[in-house]
């Protein structure tokens, strides 16, 4: 009757593992992207272009970092979402083996 028993082994690592796998790599690569971006482009010129006249270099670096982080976060979340096991949760609740 093994097929009627619900699976008891966790499907994935802990929540901390899933969250870390999303937040941490995206953070690192946002930092790299930000450094490369502002190496080649002058932050103050971009500030002027976008109409942020009050923004200094520090502000532009910070904002740039968060824009990049938002993008890389989206990428990580998508990847994590697509990596979820393919069988649906109702099957699992019914106790069928995936």
């Amino acid at each position, binding site marked *: *009757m*093994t*097929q*009627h028993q*619900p*699976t*008891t082994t*966790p*499907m*994935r*690592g*802990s*929540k*901390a*593992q*899933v969250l*870390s*796998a999303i937040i*941490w790599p995206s953070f690192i690569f946002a930092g790299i992207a930000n*450094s*490369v971006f*502002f*190496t*080649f482009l*002058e*932050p103050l010129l971009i500030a002027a272009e976008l109409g942020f006249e009050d923004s*200094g*270099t*520090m*502000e532009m*670096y*910070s904002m740039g970092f968060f824009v990049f982080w938002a993008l890389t976060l989206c990428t990580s979340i998508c990847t994590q979402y697509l990596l979820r096991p393919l069988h649906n*949760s109702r099957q*699992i*609740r*019914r*106790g069928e083996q995936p």
Partner: protein
Amino acid sequence: MSDKNDDPNVDPNVDPQTGQRPNHEQRQAPEVVQLYKKREKIYPRAVTGLFAMWRKIGVATLLGLFYLLCWIEINGQQILLFDLPARKFYIFGFTFWPQDFFYLTVLLIIAALGLFFVTTLFGRVWCGYACPQTVYTEIFLWMERLTEGDRGRQMKLDKEPWGANKFGRKGAKHFLWIVFALWTGFTFVGYFTPIRELGTRILGDGSLGGWEAWWIFFYGFATYGNAGWMREQVCLYMCPYARFQSAMFDKDTLIVAYDEKRGESRGARKRGDDHKAKGLGDCVNCTLCVQVCPTGIDIRDGLQYQCIGCAACIDVCDQVMEKMDYPKGLISYTTERVLEEGGERPRLLRPRVLIYAGVLCSVMGALLFSVASRVPVEMDIIRDRHALYRTTNIGLIENVYTIKIYNMDQNPQDYTLSVNGVETIELLGESEFSVAGGGALTHIVNVRIDPFELKKTSNTIHFLLQSKTNPDIKQEEEARFLGPAPR
């Protein structure tokens, strides 16, 4: 008797006894499926000993450097400052610009190769003694023990209902953690904006920029979260090095290992018992090695990826061995080869070690050479995009360029600008500039060419910038010169 379910023709959903399908209620049995693994809190016991002392030295040195370096100034200049507002990086008397990003990349490659090299030789010493995660966790554990006591007391406190004692101790712990984390955040931001000014802005006029405050809190929060709460989970789930370090291991790499031949079979005994007669090995099964482990593993199960090589288990086991009058080193730094084949010392000179050393030395040499031969001037040329070209009243073709000169030298320089590449080419306006040390200058120049010499619509010309005092300081840049279609 064979299991009916092995027969592919039998519907597994049909109950073999009653021959009926389970109804909807039964199928929706309220069985909770655990999608996530639950984390059990680890209470590492405090440990003393040789390796614990080395770790303390590591912690004191590295944290000392981090918290003090930013306060040291030479000639009024912070010696280590990645000045983001000014886009200049001051590193021990050198000034680097964003254009020098290349050096930073090479420096990171060197750091990575160095890590590989050390890993091959000594295993995870980086993890055990120098990694910021270890260093900060060590400090946070120390504060935790200061307020909550050691392992046993902490476990008791966590089981206790909330009362004055628990509230006071936990509150004190978090207070210490938060103050330390905020100071860490402040120090971190102090490497990107001059720290003395930052300090004055916080204490004095309250003109602290929103972003600066935000980064202090952000980095403080990251420190608090990673060293206070996440701890070993950072090593397990977030650290890529922890995952791939095994690729650098071979049989001669130093690892923390339990001598199974000597230790088994483990078991309790009285001091002075003839354990060999009882058929016992040297392991007294006191489980102290498990209690001190910051990642909560049992080293006696063999080499595990969770092991950060901190050697806390070596220290504590040696103390037990001493008490039992057994030789030390039941758990020790050793190599797989020594464990399997016996023998004395681990081999150091192996092909893998030599290859890493060779690559490391050549990259370092290349970096030194390129820093030494770095020309401290940089020139950017941007063609005026508003017009392709202009014809002057005597029929010459004119292009306009914006020239940006960065003097990366500490001293002021006088430069001469010239242009060549096509016959009759002529530079109009100023051609001599003087730029302060570490300064930049933007200038607009006009270049004229007789259209008779232009064989194409787009022509390559070269700008040459040369220092008057030191002709070795020069830079040549290519640019496009546009003209009418040749007749």
